[in-house]
């Protein structure tokens, strides 16, 4: 999509999350603070690490995980505002070129958590364009369920780094997940991935 694109997202963010999660298989997932973490709560899994803070952390947390687990697929799912705060990560990840990493931005073109102020993606900034310019192996901007169905397998299969901005409407949902203690979420994730002996040695 080009910078002058004026199409609007019509998909529902929770349906998008459900569609992605249904195909995750053994993939490890990291979600960014706010709505993406709440969406992930509707399809919670011990292989998901939900950030509740550290705005801008999601993509780079995914990189560290992808480097530590080169045999596993790693998927980051976050919001457009969260990704913009960590936009330098596109350059760092593009330079590093991890084959097993994909990043999805659920792009409602707003900071919905804080009162629905527009983000730069509503004002002509293309995150897929940034990712492409930073050397990602594949990038897409997705507007329709048919396009989403075509992109989901690429999140889990094609050589990364892969990036998809998935344009959604501005529907807000209540928090779906109550577990927000980071030490617990970290231990749950590590124990499930590494086994108790390594997780707590």
């Amino acid at each position: 999509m080009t910078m002058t694109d004026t199409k609007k997202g019509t998909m529902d963010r929770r349906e998008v999350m459900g569609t992605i999660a249904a195909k995750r298989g053994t993939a490890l997932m990291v979600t960014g603070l706010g709505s993406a973490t709440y969406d992930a709560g509707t399809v919670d899994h011990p292989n998901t690490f939900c950030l509740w803070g550290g705005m801008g952390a999601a993509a780079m947390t995914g990189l560290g995980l992808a480097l530590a687990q080169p045999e596993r697929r790693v998927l980051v799912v976050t919001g457009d505002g969260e990704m913009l705060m960590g936009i330098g990560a596109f350059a760092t990840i593009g330079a590093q070129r991890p084959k097993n990493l994909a990043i999805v931005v659920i792009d409602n073109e707003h900071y919905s958590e804080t009162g629905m102020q527009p983000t730069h993606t509503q004002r002509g900034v293309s995150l897929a364009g940034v990712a492409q310019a930073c050397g990602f192996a594949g990038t897409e901007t997705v507007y329709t369920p048919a396009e989403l169905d075509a992109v989901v397998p690429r999140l889990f299969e094609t050589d990364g780094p892969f990036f998809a901005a998935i344009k959604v409407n501005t529907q807000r949902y209540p928090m779906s997940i109550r577990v927000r203690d980071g030490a617990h979420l970290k231990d749950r994730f590590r124990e499930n991935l590494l086994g108790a002996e390594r997780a707590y040695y």
Partner: protein
Amino acid sequence: MKIEPTPRLWPGEIFQALKRSDVRQVAYVPDAGHVELIASCEADPGMSAVSLTTEEEGVAMLAGAWLGGDRGALLMQSSGVGNCINMLSVPLHCRMPLLMIVTMRGEWGEFNPWQLPMGQNAERVLQDMGVYIHRANHAEEVGQIVYAAAQLAFSSNCAVAVLLSQRLLGFKDWSK
């Protein structure tokens, strides 16, 4: 006769301490004080050395490394400490280890006044956030301090910063 400066040994000792501590991921924003260490990490096939656009990326990256079972270290100069502050909430709240190795500016014979606000306050700001400080002032103690800091971080799940004093890094005579 021109006297060649003796090469400094402590960067190699830091590298050895990181290897003995099983550090697999090294994230950095370059500083002149880290030249040899960065080169050693980049050359080691058992380490992923990742050049960052800003230091806070490294805090997030090493959180991911720990989730995946890897130990990491984050190299920066003292001005980079200021770029990390909010991101430190991730390892601090989650009780994940974080090992930072910080070359200090703005203290011993500094010639660039722009380094002072962050250099003079980096230690206090880190402590205010709940990061433990190990300071190295002498070349002989650097390797030991990094090894001890690594054990503290990885065995006690806490954030530790080793501050390499500017005095250790050398005096740049600005009057000449």
